[in-house]
């Protein structure tokens, strides 16, 4: 088993902060921690399904029609996810809104299909999918946590209608920094985090060079 494929997506090749894929849902649904977790779970499901399928079919699908084939496969998984979520998790379904269907065009999924799953074995593709999916979820949750804590003064861990786990941050919930909850806040938080990650990777590389 190749654990490198599993762990690379979490930090070294994190889809949000390093490869910068899937920005559209990242900026849009990162208003609450619970939305981020739900979106992340959805992406992991679709990514895992499509990566496995595409890896299985990589020798059957002719090169000339690979993109339409991938899109059909990805769209089917997204549709299934949408229907299941609509039936069993209505609140989350409503919260994610249009961004759930937009997983179809999330660059992470097509990107991993094109860059990884159609060249590698089924097991490696599945590991890649989990790693990338978890990396995406962690990145999204981090942005959402910052935006929710400072922008609304709350942390919504679970919001399933009947079961709610919401923490209020004293002091901040009365007078939050509202701009962070707005769209501009997503870009601000994203920018600072990207800067941090770039600084951190650069520092590590420098260290590695000096060690040589």
């Amino acid at each position, binding site marked *: 088993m190749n654990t490198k494929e599993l762990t690379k997506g979490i930090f070294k090749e994190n889809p949000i902060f390093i490869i910068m894929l899937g920005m559209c849902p990242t900026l849009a649904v990162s208003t609450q921690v619970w939305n981020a977790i739900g979106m992340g779970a959805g992406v992991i499901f679709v990514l895992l399904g499509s990566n496995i399928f595409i890896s299985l*079919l990589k020798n059957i699908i*002719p090169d000339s029609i690979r993109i339409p084939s991938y899109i059909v*496969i990805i769209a*089917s998984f997204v549709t*299934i996810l949408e*229907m299941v979520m609509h039936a069993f998790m*209505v609140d989350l379904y*409503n919260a994610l*809104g*249009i961004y759930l269907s937009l997983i179809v065009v999330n660059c992470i999924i097509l990107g991993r299909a094109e860059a990884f799953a159609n060249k590698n074995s089924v097991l490696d593709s599945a590991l890649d999918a989990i790693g990338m999916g978890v990396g995406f979820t962690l990145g999204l949750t981090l942005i959402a946590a910052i935006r929710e804590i400072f922008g609304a003064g709350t942390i919504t861990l679970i919001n399933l209608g009947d079961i709610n786990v919401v923490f209020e941050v004293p002091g901040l919930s009365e007078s939050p920094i509202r701009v962070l909850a707005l769209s501009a806040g997503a870009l601000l938080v994203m920018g600072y985090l990207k800067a941090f990650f770039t600084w951190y990777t650069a520092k590590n590389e420098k260290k590695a060079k000096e060690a040589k």
Partner: protein
Amino acid sequence: MKNYLKTGIILFAICAVCASLCAFVNSVTAPRIAANQAAANLEAAKAVSGGMTPGESVNVSLPEYPAIRAVAPLTKDNGDIGGYLLELGGSGYGGSLTVITAYYTDGSLIGAKLTNNSETAGLGKKAENDWYMDMFKGKGADVAIPTSKNDLAESEAAAISGATITFNGISSVIRQGSDYVKAQGAK
């Protein structure tokens, strides 16, 4: 030529398998989704009706009141019609939205509930909360339904900041519903 045919058949096969997979999942989830929807609408109707009993709902399409989708009379305990339950459709920031509303016969709002919508979580979605509709409650007869930030108290205006388009969408359909009910009373 043969190559085209082969490619076509492969693409067709992939599509056919995917479509049947979706069809299968749909057959499982569709009844549940419909049941959820019906339950949500019924709950919303109960919550806004102020203790009166909703009668049979009739789907309508009125050129003067495009927002009104369905009308049901509300009967008091003694059998008189005390108001109307309306299903209103409008558009917000994230697309179409549905508001279930109840009015007294004079056009004043008893209660309202935002059901189907695709508003942004944390911003426009706040309109799903009960407190959101409090700014419209009781208005519509002597005091007009507020449709602009200027009509609101300062604290209410602050609560809707960042989601003005959602507010405009909701308030305009609620006002239309109120006008409709008033016109019914005058007849």
